[in-house]
Every structure is written in structure tokens, then in C-alpha cells.
């Protein structure tokens, strides 16, 4: 195998592993005669996705909008709270511990409440996405601000830098890597939040489609939705990774 590059070997390993997995799924369920409402063969799932593509696309866009709006709201509110806690010692004593404590609340338990408050429609799902994404972002942002190097702070003090200059020139860029880490954790969580909201009560969205599929024993469609949800999450995560690349000074100590 001396002529083959190690990269190619690595790719071949990955492809053959997943190929074998899919083949095992496809022929395993047939061989063991697994009922299709328990686990349909992978080809049936592909067919279901293709046949319901318009429906899936429409529900996907709905869910995607919930996730993005909830996530962006979490980013905005997270940064605002991070800044308030940074400038106000009072907020540091009150809001910071409160946020840290609320972080441990199981957010899924809030889904029925969100539906009572905001109805069956769009807003309650945005609220769920927000609740799931908010805590990792705010905790990471606060940690980022707090983690500004002490020697740099002293350097800025020696230069008589004002609070706003210190914030924009020093604190904000220092906190960015931690903030991006928070977004990285929060993005898939926003999707989880929106789906849980839809499962608990909704009239549209991929979570709603899963409920419809389950009720009519369309397990192939349910699997199709799960695959699409996973793909959307992966794309969103990749977008965050791209943004993270512009914050290249993560972990660089000079």
C-alpha cells in the first residue's frame, strides 16, 4: 500500500464504515423482518423524503425561522446582559447568580408553559429556541469579559483609558472567543428547543410533522424528518464554525 496516500486511506475507511452501516440497515431489517413502522429500510426513508419533499421543505423553513430568530434573540439579549453585568456591580451581585442558577432549570419542562403564554403558533417555539440558546451564550459571554488578562487591564489603566475605550478595545475582543464558544454550544440547542416546542403543541414545523407521522404510523416520514433536522443543525453549526475562524486569536497567549 506504499503508493497510496494516508489521506486516501483515511477517506476509504470512513466511506466503507458508513457504507457498511447503511447496507446493514437496509438488508438487516429485511433479513430479520423488522416491521416497517418500527424501523423502515433506509431506502424507504429516502423515498419518503423525496415524495414528501414539498411538505418537508415548507415545514423545515418554518422550523428554521423559529431556530434562527430564537438564536439571534439569545445572542442579542446575551450580549446586552453580559454588558450590563460588566458595567454594574449591582447586576453582578444579582443578575449573574440568578442566570447561573436558572441555567440548571430543565428547559424542556417550560415548553407547556410557553404554549400557555404564547399560543400554539410561531412565538412559543421562538421562545423555546431562545430559552435553550440563551444560557450558554450569556454564561460564556460573562466568562469572556471576566477572563480579560489582568496585566492588560493594568496596562490600560496606566494609559488612563476610559471605561468605553477599555470595553471596546480590550474587553470585547478578549471576550469574543468565549462568546463564539457559547454560540457553538447554543446553536444545536436552539434547534432542540424549537423541536421540543413543536412536539408539545404546534400546527406546523418539522416537530409537528414528526407527530403527524407517528400518529399515522409513517415511521419512514418520521425518520426523514429526523434526518432533515440533523442536516439543518449541521449546516447551522458549520456556519458558526466559519464565523469562529475570524476570531483566530482564541487561545493565543503572548
Amino acid at each position, binding site marked *: 500500500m506504499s503508493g497510496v496516500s494516508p489521506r486516501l486511506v483515511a477517506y476509504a475507511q470512513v466511506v466503507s464504515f458508513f457504507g457498511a452501516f447503511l447496507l446493514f440497515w437496509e438488508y438487516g431489517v429485511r433479513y430479520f423482518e423488522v416491521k416497517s413502522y418500527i424501523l423502515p429500510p433506509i431506502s424507504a426513508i429516502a423515498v419518503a423524503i423525496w415524495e414528501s419533499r414539498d411538505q418537508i421543505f415548507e415545514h423545515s423553513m418554518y422550523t428554521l425561522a423559529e431556530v434562527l430568530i430564537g438564536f439571534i434573540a439569545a445572542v442579542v439579549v446575551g450580549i446586552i446582559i453580559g454588558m450590563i453585568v460588566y458595567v454594574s456591580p449591582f447586576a453582578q451581585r444579582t443578575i449573574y447568580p440568578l442566570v447561573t442558577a436558572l441555567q440548571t432549570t430543565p428547559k424542556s419542562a417550560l415548553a407547556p408553559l410557553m404554549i400557555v403564554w404564547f399560543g400554539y403558533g410561531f412565538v412559543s417555539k421562538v421562545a423555546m429556541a431562545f430559552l435553550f440558546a440563551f444560557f450558554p451564550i450569556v454564561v460564556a459571554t460573562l466568562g469572556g469579559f471576566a477572563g480579560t488578562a489582568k*496585566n*492588560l487591564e*493594568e*496596562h*490600560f*489603566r*496606566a*494609559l*488612563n*483609558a476610559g471605561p468605553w*475605550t477599555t470595553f471596546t*478595545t*480590550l474587553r470585547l*475582543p478578549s471576550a469574543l472567543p468565549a462568546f463564539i464558544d457559547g454560540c457553538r454550544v447554543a446553536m444545536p440547542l436552539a434547534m432542540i428547543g424549537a423541536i421540543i416546542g413543536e412536539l408539545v403543541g404546534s400546527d406546523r414545523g418539522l416537530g409537528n410533522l414528526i407527530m403527524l407521522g407517528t400518529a399515522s404510523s409513517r415511521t419512514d416520514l418520521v425518520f426523514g424528518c429526523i434526518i432533515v433536522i440533523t442536516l439543518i443543525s449541521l449546516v447551522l453549526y458549520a456556519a458558526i464554525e466559519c464565523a469562529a475562524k475570524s476570531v483566530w*486569536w482564541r487561545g*493565543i*497567549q*503572548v
Partner: protein
Amino acid sequence: MSATATIEANKGGAQPAAQPLANHIEAKGLNKHFGKVAALEDINFGIRNQEFVSVLGPSGCGKSTLLRIIAGLIPYESGSATVRGEVIHSPRPDIGVVFQTNNMLPWLTVRKNVELGARIRKMPAQARDHAVDKVLEVLSLSKFADAHPHQLSGGMRQRASIGQALVLDPPILLMDEPFGALDALTRDKLNVELLRIWQEHRKTVMLITHSIAEAVFLSDRVLVMADRPGKIIEEVVIDLPRPRDAAATRALPQFGEYVAYLGKIMGVTK
């Protein structure tokens, strides 16, 4: 008055006229405690305009604390500390500080880092660009202006840190073990460079160090400190001819004598 002096100094390195013998920095009966621990006890000294004074002492003797008080970064309990006759209560624009840890922001280029002080102090853009160019040239960093700090060696980063202080051309320079984290060879080179800069652009310098050779080579006077509590136990005038030279000065018999003498004082006090 300090503002005028700074502007004058920025224009062409012109020093404020008059009183070359007046004390630029002065401490009288200065005391500093951290909780119940006495960090500094009855500190008395003066540093004249354009004088190069080193404060030499074992680690933990409070010499960095002393520098931070003069820099206006921390308060003191009793006695007095003045810069150009004014009581110190906050950082002053006519003082540049170089710390042991280089204070480069990793996300800014060397040029932007050196520029930082001038930006924060709101120096006009044209004067700022000119000052930055000059400082980068003096420190042989022009070629690395667009590099980021992590791409530089430790010695170059420390040079850039000195540039951060020099860009405002402050008449007073406080340096807290600026070469303490460097290897001996780089340290020697930077000593020579600092000496050259000081000989060309005379400034009042207070250098904190624990290197005896560094203190003797650079200083007009050395203040020796002892620890627990930190106090000045000896003042040694380094009467070596100026301008000094990397090789010739270190080869002088008196150089060795000063080093030996200071070594003896510090050894005895330990």
C-alpha cells in the same frame, strides 16, 4: 503643566527646559501595607530629571509595588510620593510604563499595538503615525509592523512593549523588570538597545530589576532594597563614564567592582 510638557516632548523629543537637578520623582517616608503585611516601610529617594536609576532587590521585596505607586496604579498609606512636585493619585500622561509581561493585544498588529497608547491618549492622527514610524525604526521593528505578536520572538515582543511606552515620548519611563522573562543573551542585547535609546532621547528612568549587571551597566545610581518589609538599604552611585559601550564598559575593572560590591550587599541581606 504636564500636558504642555508632553506636547513639547512629542514634537521633537525636546525636553522641558530648566531644573536638570530637580527631582522628577520623589518619595518621602512612604509606607504601604497589604492587609497587615508591611510591603514598603519608610521609603525615601529622589530621581533627578534625565537620571537613570535602578531599584535592585530580591523578588518579593516590594520593588514592583513601589513602581506601581509611582505609576499611580495603586494607593499608599502614608508619607508622600510626588512626580514633578505633584502628589501622585492616578496614572499621569507624562509617565510611560513598561511591565515585565509584555502587554501586546494578540488580535492587533505590532503597529496597532505600538499605536495603542497614542490612540488612547488621542494624539492627532498625523503626529501619531509619525511617532509610531519613528519608534518602530528606533526599535528595529519596522519590518514587523504588520506582523501579529504571536509571530514574534519574546525579545521582539518586549521591544514592542517598550515601543508602546515610547510612542508618547514621555519624559519619565518606569520599567518593571522589562527583561525579566527573557533569556540572558536577548536580555544583554536589549540592555544595549535601551542604553542607546536613553543616550539619544534622555528620559528620567526608574528601572526595577533583580539583575546586578543590568543595574550597573545602565544606571547612574542603584537603590538596593531588602525585603520584609521592603526598604531601601543602600544607595550606590555608579560612576562609570558615559556614553557607555556594550563591550568596553563591561570590561572596565570598576564595572566588576560595582557588581561585586552590590552582590555582597545583596548576599549579606538575604
